[in-house]
C-alpha cells in the first residue's frame, strides 16, 4: 500500500515538474517574443504613418482624397522593418479603408525561440494592426 502511494506521489511529482517545465518554456518564449516584437508593434504605427506620409498623393489629399502608392509603401515598410527590427519578415497585407481612415496591415514574422521545443526550431507569428491616418478632425465639444 505504501508502495502504491509512493508511486502515485512520484507520478504526480513528475507531472508537476513537466507542467512547470512547460510553463517555464512558454513563459520564456513569450517573454522573448514580447521583448523582441513588442517594440516593433509599438513602432509599427510610426512606420506605417511615415510611409503613408511619404507615399500619399499630397495634391489629392489637399482635396480630402486619400490615395496612396500602396506597393511602394509595402516596400518601404518591409525595408524599415527588416533593417531595424527583424530580417525575416513578410508583409502579408496593407490596405487603406477610406471610410474609417485606417490602414490594415498584416505581418508574418519568423521567430526562433531560445528554447528548442520542436524539431523545426522557428515560429511563424502573425501580426494584424490598424493604423489611423486621418486629416485633422474637428470635434464638437469644447474644453
Amino acid at each position, binding site marked *: 500500500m505504501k508502495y502504491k502511494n509512493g508511486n502515485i506521489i512520484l507520478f504526480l511529482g513528475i507531472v508537476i515538474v513537466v507542467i512547470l517545465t512547460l510553463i517555464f518554456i512558454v513563459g520564456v518564449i513569450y517573454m522573448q517574443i514580447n521583448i523582441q516584437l513588442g517594440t516593433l508593434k509599438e513602432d509599427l504605427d510610426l512606420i506605417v504613418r511615415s510611409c503613408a506620409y511619404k507615399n500619399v498623393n499630397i495634391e489629392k489629399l489637399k482635396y480630402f482624397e486619400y490615395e496612396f502608392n500602396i506597393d511602394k509603401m509595402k516596400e518601404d515598410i518591409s525595408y524599415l522593418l527588416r533593417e531595424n527590427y527583424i530580417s525575416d519578415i513578410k508583409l502579408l497585407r496593407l490596405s487603406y479603408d477610406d471610410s474609417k481612415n485606417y490602414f490594415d496591415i498584416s505581418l508574418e514574422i519568423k521567430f526562433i525561440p531560445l528554447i528548442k521545443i520542436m524539431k523545426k526550431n522557428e515560429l511563424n507569428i502573425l501580426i494584424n494592426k490598424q493604423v489611423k491616418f486621418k486629416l485633422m478632425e*474637428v470635434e*464638437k465639444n469644447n474644453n
Partner: protein
Amino acid sequence: MCKIFVRLLFLLVIIYILNYHPLNKLIGKSYTFEEIIDIVGIPKYNKNNEKINKEIYNKYNLFVYSSPENILKKTNLQRFKEVKDKGKYSYNKKKGEFFILGTNYEGDYVYNVYFPVDMVPESLPDKWNFIYYSSFEKSWNCNYLYIEQVEYMKETNLLFDKIDLKNKTCDSYNFVEYNISPIKYGLGKFRLNTLATWKTMGIISTKRRAEDGTIRDSVFATKPMAVSANIKSWIDVKDKVDMSEDEDSVNIDISFGCDVINLSKYAKEYHIKNITSKIYINDRYVDSVSGSKTANLDKKIMFAISREKDEIRAKDVILNIRVESYMYTEFLVDGLMYDSCSKEVLVKIAPKKLVPINSIDINLLKVHNGTLVVSPLVQTTKTNIENSSGIIEKGRYLALSLSLNLKREYYENFDIYVNNIKQDYEIIKDKNNIIVLKLGVEDNFNVSITTWKTLRDTYGSIFDIENQDIGRRINKPNVIKIIVKLNVNKINYEYLVYVDTVDYYMDNINYKYFDNVTNFEELDNIYEI
C-alpha cells in the same frame, strides 16, 4: 338805289358777324377745321342737309353751311360785287363779295357784312333820327340764356361803316365806333338781332328818318363781349432734375393747367362750356385735365424717368414738356380758343453707382466622387468675433464664389491680394454671373489660430500642450482683398474677406481640433460649385 341799300341793311338783321379781332391768333393753329368742329360740337350738316363750308370759315371765320354759289342758284337775292383789292371771295376769277355767304343751322341765310353798300348816308349815325317801334322794345325782353349778353348789347357803343361825308364814301371793311348805345337812345329805337358773344359781334338794326323824310333801315354791329379773353397754358416744373448715382429712377413733379384771362363784366366763367389742358412730354401724350364753367385748371402729375436698363454711364436727358390748352364757350360761333406753352427740363443722370459684386462666399474646396465641391469652413466663437469667414489649414484651397451684379462683359479682371501680396488664382466656374475662384492657402497666409504643430513648436514638447490652447488666436485673420476692375468705367472696386489659417494640413494628420465650433453640423455638408 336807296331802296336797295335799305333792303340790304334790313336783311343783315340775322347776320353772323365776322370776328372783329384777329381771331387767327386765338383759334388753335394746331387744330384743323375738322378737329375744331369735332371738339366744339358743331354739326357737319344743317337741317337742310347742307354741308358745313370750310372755305367760308377760313376766309370769314364764320361757320356756315352750303356755299355762295349754291345760294346763287336758289335765290335772286344773291349778288356778287367785285372788290378789287379787299375782296375776300373769288368768283369767276374776280375778287369780291357775295351778298349771302351761306345758311345757318336752321337753314336761314347768313349775310355778308363786308358786302359794299349801295349808297352813302348823308350824315353820321350819331346825328340820325331813330324811330321808336314797340316791336323793337320787345326784342330786348326775350328769354335770353345769358343776361350778360343782353346787358352788353344795351350798354356798348355801336359800330357802323366808316363814312366819309366829304368824299361820299362808305367803307364796309372798316367799322367805326359811334357814340350810340341802345340804353342811351332808348331801347325802343333799336331792334336786337344778334347777341354778341365773347368773340363775335352783335347785330342791332334800326329805322331812321332821313333828311329827305324817307325811312331807312340801318344795321349796326357791336364789338365782341370779350375780344381779348383768351386761354393761357402754364407749366410748373423744375428746370433741372438730378438722378443720383444711387437712383435708378427719379420722379419729376409737374403741375400744369391753364387760366382764362381777360374775362370782363360781361364775359363770365360760367359761359365756358369746356376747357381742357393736355400735357405732352417729348411729343407723347401723357395726361390731361378738363372742366366746365371754370376759368382755371390745374393738375399735378409725377413723371418718372428711369435709367435705361444696364445703362451705367452719365447722361443728360432733355424732356420737352408741352401743354396745349383749349376752350370753347356756350357760344359755338366763338370757335376754339387755344394756347400752348412748353418748357425743357434737363435731367442729369449721374453715372450709376455700381455694385459689381452682390456677395462673396468663401468655402473649403474638396473633391467628392471626382467632382469639385465645397464645404463650409470651420467657424468658432473666436472667428466670428473677428469677422473671419472661418478656419482653413494651410496648403488647402479656398473657393471664393463671387456673385456678379452686372453684365459679365463689364468685368475686365479680378485681382486677389492676400495680406497685401498679390496671389494667383484659377477660375473654376464662370457661369450665370457666378464666378468661383480657386485660391491656394499658400505662404502668404499667416497662421492665426493655434493647433498642435504650432503649440508643439512653441512649447517644444507635445506633452506640455493643454487642450484649451488648441484654437487660441495668435494673429489677426488673414485679409483677402478682391479687386474687381470694370471695363466700363475703369474703376477698381475692393472687397475684403477675412479667413483664419492653422498649420499646414499635413502637420495636422491624426490630430483633433476643438474650440467652440459653431457650425459643427454643417461641416460635412458638400455643395456643388
